[in-house]
């Protein structure tokens, strides 16, 4: 699943309905959805940020930052999920027989 793509000199993101919208229109809810996909989907792709490929400077700023964060998250996604499930893990396993 491609979450970020560069097309016709513009940066785009995938919205919840699977449509691609210009990156400067991205709202925080959209960002949260991208994070969720990055963590849950097996394969996610991002077009690498390329300053020359995006003409609009505002788009450059948003695309660059979102791309960087999502890439990092993809690399550490297991660690990220494990950390959330660390508390009471022992009890959770222990009470499994119920």
């Amino acid at each position, binding site marked *: 699943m491609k979450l970020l793509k560069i097309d016709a000199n513009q940066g785009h993101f995938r919205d919840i309905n699977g449509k691609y919208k210009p990156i400067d229109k991205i709202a*925080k809810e959209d960002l949260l959805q991208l994070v969720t996909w990055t963590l849950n989907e097996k394969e996610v792709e991002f077009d690498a940020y390329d300053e020359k490929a995006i003409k609009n400077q505002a788009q450059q700023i948003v695309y660059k930052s979102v791309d960087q964060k999502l890439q990092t998250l993809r690399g550490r996604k297991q660690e990220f999920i494990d950390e959330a499930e660390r508390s*009471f893990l022992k009890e959770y396993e222990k009470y499994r027989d119920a």
Partner: protein
Amino acid sequence: MKKIDLHIHTVPTFSDSAFTFSIETFKRYVTEAHLDAVAVTNHDVFDGKQFRLIQSALDAVVFPGIEINVEEGHVLVIASASELEDFEVKTRLVAQKITKLGDRLSIQELEQVFGDLGNYLVIPHTDKAPPITGATLQKLRQYVCAGEVDSAKKFVRAIKDDTKLTPVLFSDARMKTDLATLPTRRTFVDCGDVTLSALKANLRDKGKVALSEVDGNKLWQVFESGEKLSTGLNVLIGARSTGKTHTLDRLSTTIENVKYIKQFSLVQQDEGAYERAFKGDVERRRSVFIDDFLSGLKAVLDDVMKVDLVANDKAMERYVATLVKSAEEADRRDAFSKTALFDAENFPVGQTKVLQELIESVRQVIENVEFKAIIDKHLDSRSLKRLARELIELLWARTLENSKRSLVNGVIKDVKQSLKMRTAAVPVEDVDLYKVSMDKKRIQRFREIVDFLKRKAVVFQESIQGFRVEAEKEPFAGAGEIKEVSGVKTSFAAAFRKYGDPYDYLRELMSDESLTRSELYKLFVKINYRILNKDGFEVSGGERSEFRLLQEIADAQNYDILLIDEPESSFDNLFLNSNVNQILKDISEVMPVVVVTHNNTVGASVGADYVLYTSKELEQGKTVYRIYSGHPTDKQLLSTDGKAINSHEVMLNSLEAGVAPYESRRKGYEAIKN
């Protein structure tokens, strides 16, 4: 009766402080103390060569032995001298296993080394550090015939207690070159020839051990020269400058774990200093309660200290200002400020504390053992476990959601910052309205709590020996009072000006770096201690001394002997007779007590078990100090060098200022009576 000391050190090991062994000291000790038998018991080693030297030099039975570090404490293993070579071999194994501090043998290893321990005299420390108790003692129990204690008090206690082993009191002394005073701790055993088997048989019988040769466990020797004390109540009398206080001082250095109440130590001298000492004393004893009382406030403060209302107000102001400005500039927006994230607010990140606490509570219900039957009656444990698992899953989901939101907030911040640098438009500053309102509510509650705390009320009451200790809370009346409680040399004038508003006051205190934050909870309300007498009035100076004396005497129970020098120095006879005498008598049932007195109320009415009389005598131009002693009903008191003195005369001279004044006083009373 045979006098024995079976715990003596002659080799310095890593378990001792350094000393140089002296055979001369050992000889002097055995001779002067008239010992019939001794044992050489060094820490985890046995030196056969040295033992043979000692054996040939001493005029007493000498047993080879060793003091071994076992599981929890120390145990003496003593052999028959006829088994010397075998003992050397076995103890060498012990020395190989215990080579540094902390090394120890299990009881199983001890049995492996020595084979049948029944062939030895096995004496564990029972009421002496480090003691062997519980399971370890049970494992050893079949081999043990006596347990070592370290004071006369503990010896008598063990004799009286059917559940305790026969006690033995030994010196545990180092036979070193510069031994200043010879040890006085040893035990008498009722046996014929002192052999290992005779000792083993006799030590099993409590009726055959004693602290003194003829007086059983009623008396025990305290000084090298032979003077004894009762294991109950001793009264020490004598004219001025005959060595009464000196004798107490000596006792306090020869005996371990002594409670010594010195003369005038409780007497009111400087009112101010006394008041402080008295209050400090009472407060120290009650501080645990007060800490507990204020612990609620401490928890609230930990929370409230994180709240910065000023910063919150500023954030609100910035939010409103940037919002207005952004609205004004709406038509002037460029590509940067038009991006959706430019004005995006952060996602609120929720707390999972309540959920975590709920899971913890459910966990406690599941895991509780003590009330399991009741819990099982009402709740199905399988359902509880399913509940716990579902809550944990919810917690994980919430935590993950929070992490995701924090991540997104990070992106928003990052993007906004970059956009801000490129645009002239003002981004709307974010503010967490939920947090701001929660903080306000928190501070409101905090103010209510502190205002309630400041109301004057008694928060603690305790009755002690006819007195009542009261702790009362009330607001601080000035900066000086706060300073005194804080114990810090800083000015509280500015803080006190804000004392009326608990939050402002807290911020002022927080701005002073010399104050420890975790201690600030003590500075919100003043706790006053008052001691009230039986009529409910605050105690007078004299009563305060009485209270302290009673407290000190009660505290003596934690020691092995109580020495008290002239309690009459500041108390009236009525108090001495009704309170002090009774308490001294009671406490002497469980431990030795020595009272120095000139007062007939104490000396003659306390019901002493033993009387000691100090005397300064001139003999052939030389001053000789003597201690005469005996039971209160004895016609004569005797000194250890064979002198005797008339008891009646001594008592009247010391306690009634002589026979003639006593007679005239008696007649005077008779006359009034008639």
